[in-house]
């Protein structure tokens, strides 16, 4: 096992797949010569050359569209959209073209491609560079949606995404890029569609994603030690496919569900999970489902404002104490 940062794990995952499969190509803005603005792709140009690792103009529609055209003709492109907010600039390509083409063509066209993107808050970049938009992608049939919370998951899930025959939107939480963690050596591939139970408790099941997984775990420690509330924490990891089996069985065990979402409230992924739980294991519920989210506002940039907008450990503790008896 080597210790890698989250950002190094991105490069490692891409490199592993490019090494293995000549069809894997990588494109984006400032990704080649500069190694990416988040330094997530350092060394790839040197290792795989300018034919496979390509710097692009500021043309998100062309980048994602080119990935689509390449994917349907035999390549397995990985495209970087620098900030997930910019998915909006090429949303037609993502939501209307890539997501729908296999279905519309009744399976004639396959689109094995990955769109990687830096997601989420914490850098004081303001409302146009800080959004957590996993729910945008989740709402569109035809897209797989993944958001890892650790360096090992980054490498394993990115490899799985590249090998997946369907389009995958891969969200990398910006605020986790410098996180370190053990990553298995050698070829390492994880599986899409599997949640991970990171901690088991008896009072409440907390479902979280990406950065929020760490906050949920920390909150669970505090709740256990200081307040005698014992929580299960589930890292969803993959929103599509969604591991409803794990989610439903873990909620059934504790009888309570809390989602912790970085996104603004309305139509977040937690709403979907809440609706599934309340439809499919209603009789196991011992009390209201609680959603802890960023309030439904665009994100402010000043540090204190930003920190107080997205769910903090303290807020998770407080809300669970108040709402879970």
């Amino acid at each position, binding site marked *: 096992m080597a210790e890698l940062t989250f950002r190094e794990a991105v490069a490692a995952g891409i490199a592993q797949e490019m090494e293995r499969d000549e069809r894997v*190509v990588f494109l984006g803005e400032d990704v080649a010569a500069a190694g990416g603005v988040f330094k997530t792709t350092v060394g790839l140009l040197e290792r795989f050359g300018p*034919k496979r690792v*390509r710097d*692009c*103009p500021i*043309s*998100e*529609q*062309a*980048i*994602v*569209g*080119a*990935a*689509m*055209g*390449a*994917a*349907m*003709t*035999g*390549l397995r*492109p990985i495209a970087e959209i620098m900030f997930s907010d910019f998915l909006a600039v090429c949303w*037609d*390509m993502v939501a*209307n*073209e890539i997501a729908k*083409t*296999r*279905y*519309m*063509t*009744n*399976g*004639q*066209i*396959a689109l*094995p491609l990955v769109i990687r993107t830096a997601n989420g808050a914490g850098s004081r970049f303001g409302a146009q560079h800080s959004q957590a938009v996993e729910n945008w992608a989740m709402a569109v*049939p*035809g897209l797989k949606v993944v958001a890892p919370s650790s360096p090992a998951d980054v490498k394993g899930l990115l490899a799985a995404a590249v090998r997946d*025959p*369907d389009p995958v939107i891969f969200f990398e939480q910006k605020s986790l890029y410098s996180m370190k963690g053990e990553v298995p050596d050698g070829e390492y591939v994880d599986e899409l*569609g599997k949640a991970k139970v990171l901690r088991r408790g008896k009072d409440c099941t907390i479902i979280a994603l990406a950065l929020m997984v760490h906050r949920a775990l920390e909150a669970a420690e505090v709740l256990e030690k200081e307040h005698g509330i014992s929580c299960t924490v589930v890292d969803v990891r993959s929103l*599509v*496919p*969604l*591991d*409803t*089996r794990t989610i439903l069985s873990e909620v059934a065990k504790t009888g309570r569900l809390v989602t912790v979402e970085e996104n603004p409230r309305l139509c977040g992924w937690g709403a979907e999970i809440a609706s599934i739980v309340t439809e499919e294991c209603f009789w196991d519920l011992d009390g209201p489902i609680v959603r802890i989210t960023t309030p439904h506002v665009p994100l402010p940039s000043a540090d204190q404002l930003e920190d107080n907008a997205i769910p903090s450990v303290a807020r998770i503790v407080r809300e669970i104490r108040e709402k879970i008896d």
Partner: protein
Amino acid sequence: MKGKKAAAGDDIGRETRLELYRLQVELRYCEKRAYDLFLQNLVKGTSHLSLGQEAIAAAFGVAMRPDDYTFCTYRGHAHTLARGASMAGVLGELMGRQCGLLGGKGGSMHLTDVAHGAMGSYAIVGAHLPVAAGAAWSAQYRGTEQVAVCFFGDGTANIGAFHEALNLAAVWKLPVIFVCENNLYMEYTPISAVTAVKHPAADRASAYGLESILVDGNDADEVYRVAVRTMSQARAGGGPALIEAKTYRHSGHSRADPAKYRPEGELDKWLERDPIKLYRERLVKLGLNEATLKDIEDQALRKVDEATAIAKASLPPSLDGIEKNVWADGGAAWRN
């Protein structure tokens, strides 16, 4: 191209010319049939006919290599057929039948036949230009000398994706031919009312360092020549081309449109320049006999009749198709 040899017509040759004629006639008859089927209420969704614009589809269809890629729009019946897609598959798709190219899942606006290089019809204006660039990138990467040809309308030259695709294709020297079929209208609005330049595509070629190419889109030979030239340049690594082909659609924008916005006499003027009529006259002038042409026409009609019969006989798609083919595993499961 405009020299003596071209004028004599011997640069193209009799066989190719007959092929160009045959294809134009087939496209025409099939589009007319699509219209009849619509009048019989057998075509349920919308449809956008290429009546009057067949020379462009036919010329490229003949000029392209079997493994080249076609990308077209909702106005894509002709381009899809021109690559060799099954006519019953096309008509069946318009009618929402099982035999449809897409099993009724896509409809008139999304005709696709990957086996014949027809890589999809795209219904959102401009979206397929970057996709075509991507297919060309793939061909370049794989070293196959395939070319991607991307058809779109005059109105499409004003959307952002056009700009991005052209620039990327030029910078990466991609083997992609962008073909603007300028039929004077973006839907119901004259293109001149919404475009800063006279020729929406040709006047913009220089913005991408490309040659400005304007061609008579109602002359199959002219289009064929420019297709051959630009595609062989692209195959040789010379990069993309942007072609503007002037043409006219004889019917409305889509089945819903009676095209009342057209100034009086405009249609008549263009009917005189009907590409198929012109081409037939040229062939006769070049010495082809009436019987040969008549034979081509009869065969085309038979082909359309047969396809119609197959499509009409085909059942509606089975309902379980609704939850099929979202994913590569054939299903639609978003959960375990």
